[in-house]
C-alpha cells in the first residue's frame, strides 16, 4: 500500500502526480435506494507507470476509471489529472481537456465502421481542428509505429481483432495525450495477441511524462504491470507490483 494515501490528506496532491484522487465517492440511485459504488478513494498514479485496476465485476473499477478520465462526475471528492482539478472545469473545458490530454482505448474498440483505419486513428486530431490531410499523415505514422501502416486504407471489418485493437491504440495515442486509459484491452484477444498488444502499449503509451491506466481482469497479463490496484466493494484493498496471494 505504498502509494495509498491517508484520506485526511485532501488537497495533498503533488504536482508531479499524473492522477490524484482524494475522497472520491460515487453513488448510484437504484429506485428508492442509493448504492455507493466507490467509498472515498484516495490514490496517486505517477507518470511512467503502467497501472492496472483489477477487481471482480461490480467492484467499481469501471466507475473509478470513468471518474479518473473525466467522463463521470464523482458524488464527492476531487480528481486532479496532471495538476488540473478536472471537475472544477466547465463542461466545455472538461471536454476540451479530455480531447487534448487523454487517450481512450475501449474494449469493443468502437471504431467507425465506414471509414478506414487511418481516418479512424485521426479522429482526435480532426476533432482538434487539425487539417484532415495532416491528421491522416500523423495517423499513418502512428499506425506504422504500431506495425500496421500497410493496413491504413482498410475498413475496420477488413481487419482482424488484433489489428482493430492496434487502430484503437493508434487513435488513443495519435494526439500524444499525457494519460491513456484502457478498458479491458486484451479481453477479445487470444493470449499471444493480448501480450503483443500489451508489449506495444508499454512501448508507446508509457513514458516518463505519460501514464497509462488499464482496467483488466485478464490474469495472463498481470506480470506486465508496474503497479496493480485491486478494488473490492468500492475500496482499494491492494496496491503493489504483483497480485496478492490467493487472487
Amino acid at each position: 500500500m505504498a502509494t495509498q494515501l491517508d484520506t485526511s490528506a485532501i488537497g495533498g496532491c503533488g504536482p508531479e502526480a499524473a492522477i490524484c484522487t482524494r475522497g472520491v465517492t460515487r453513488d448510484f440511485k437504484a429506485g428508492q435506494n442509493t448504492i455507493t459504488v466507490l467509498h472515498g478513494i484516495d490514490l496517486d498514479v505517477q507518470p511512467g507507470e503502467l497501472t492496472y485496476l483489477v477487481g471482480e465485476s461490480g467492484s467499481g473499477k469501471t466507475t473509478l476509471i470513468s471518474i479518473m478520465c473525466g467522463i463521470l462526475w464523482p458524488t464527492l471528492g476531487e480528481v486532479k489529472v496532471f495538476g488540473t482539478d478536472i471537475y472544477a472545469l466547465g463542461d466545455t473545458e472538461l471536454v476540451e481537456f479530455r480531447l487534448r490530454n487523454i487517450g481512450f482505448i475501449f474494449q469493443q474498440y468502437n471504431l467507425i465502421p465506414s471509414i478506414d483505419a487511418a481516418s479512424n486513428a485521426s479522429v482526435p486530431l480532426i476533432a482538434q481542428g487539425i487539417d484532415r490531410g495532416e491528421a491522416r499523415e500523423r495517423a499513418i505514422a502512428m499506425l506504422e509505429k504500431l506495425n500496421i501502416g500497410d493496413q491504413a486504407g482498410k475498413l475496420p471489418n477488413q481487419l482482424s481483432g488484433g489489428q482493430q485493437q492496434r487502430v484503437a491504440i493508434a487513435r488513443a495515442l495519435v494526439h500524444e495525450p499525457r494519460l491513456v486509459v484502457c478498458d479491458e484491452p486484451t479481453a477479445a484477444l487470444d493470449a499471444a495477441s493480448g501480450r503483443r498488444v500489451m508489449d506495444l502499449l508499454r512501448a508507446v503509451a508509457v513514458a516518463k511524462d505519460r501514464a497509462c491506466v488499464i482496467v483488466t481482469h485478464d490474469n495472463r497479463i498481470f506480470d506486465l504491470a508496474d503497479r496493480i490496484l485491486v478494488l473490492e466493494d468500492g475500496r482499494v484493498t491492494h496496491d503493489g507490483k504483483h497480485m496478492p496471494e490467493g487472487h
Partner: protein
Amino acid sequence: MTWIAIRMLTGDAQKFYGIVFGIAFSTLLITQQLTIFVNLIERGASGTYNVPSADVWVMDEVSRTTDVAYPMPSTALDKVRSVPGVEWAVPHLRATASVRSGDGDLEGVSIIGVDDATLIGLPRRMVAGSADVLAQPDSVIIDDVGVTRLFDDGSNPIGARLELNDQRAVIRAIADAIPSFTSQVTLYTKYSQALRYVPGTRNRLSFVLVGAADDVTAQELATRIHAETGLRARTRDEFADDGVQFIIENTGIPLNFGITVALGFIVGVAIVGLTFSLFIRDNIKQFGALKAIGVTNRKIRSMVAAQAGLVGLIGYGLGVLGTVVFIWSFSGDPTFKGFYIPWQIPLISLVAVTVILALTGWLALRNVLRTEPASVFR
C-alpha cells in the same frame, strides 16, 4: 468532423438510401400533388384566360363563372355600350350541346359564340387554320383537347362534319386553348351561328365582353358598368379568381389534395424518422466514443445536422426532379396541357423537408446527447 459524419451515414448504404428515398418520396408527393392541384384549380379560370383581350366581363347578377352563367336579354349589350369609358363591347355566348361524331359517338361539348364582326372571344393562337374560317357556313373551330377526344384514332379533324344538336357543323380550324376544368370538348363559332346551334330560352346572351378606353382602368370601368346597368361586372383578373374560387368552394379537390400532401409529409416523417433513429441507434457506441474522446455536443449537433442536410439535399433534389420528369412526361396528354410548377411549390416542399429533417434529426439527436460518455466503458 463533418466529413466523418457524412462517411458514417453514407457508409451504411441501406439506411442512407432509405432516408434519401423517404425524403425524395415525400418531396415528390408534396410537390407533384400541389402542382397538379394548383394547375387544376387554375383551369377554373381558363375561360377567362382564353380571352385575353377582354378587360371586363359583364354578366347577370347571379352568374359566377364562365361555366356558371345565367343568360341576359340581348338589350344588356346596348346598355353596356352606352356606359362612358367602354371602348368596345361584344356579345359572348357559352352553352352546352351534344355532338354526334361521324362514327356515331355522342359527346357533351361547350359551345362558345364569339362576336360575328370582330371574332373577339376566340383564343389568340390557332394550332391549324385561322379565325377567318368562321366566315364560311356552318363553321366551327375545335380546341386541341377536343381533337384528342373526338379524333383519338388520329384522323384529320379539319373538314370533319359533326351533328351538333341536330345541326350541321364543319370543323375548319383547331384552336390552341387552355382546357376547361373538366377538359370538355369546346367548339367556337360565330355568335349568330351559336344561337342556331343552341336553341332554347328567350335570353341567351351569357356575357358581354368589354374593352376599356385608355382613360379608364378596368376596375373603374367595372364599377361604373355595375352602377349604371345593375349588371355584374368583373375585371379579367377578378373573374379568373372567381373561377378558381368556385372550384375551391364547390368541389372536394382542396380537401383531397390536402390529405395527400399531408400524407406525403407524414410518410416522410415516418420513413425518415424511423430510419434516422435506427441509424443513430446503431451508431450510438461510436457517438459515445466520440463524446468520451472529446467531441463536444455542439460538434455532435453539427455532425447530425450535416447528415440531415446531405440526405435532405439529395432527397429533395430527386423529389423535385421526379416532379419535373412527371410533368414533362405527361405534357403531351391534353389533361396536363400547360401544366407548370409555380416557384412557390418547390419552396413549400423545401420548407416541408426542412421541417421533417429538423423534427426527425432532433428526435435522433436527443438520444445522442443523452448518451453519457461513460457508457462506452459499460
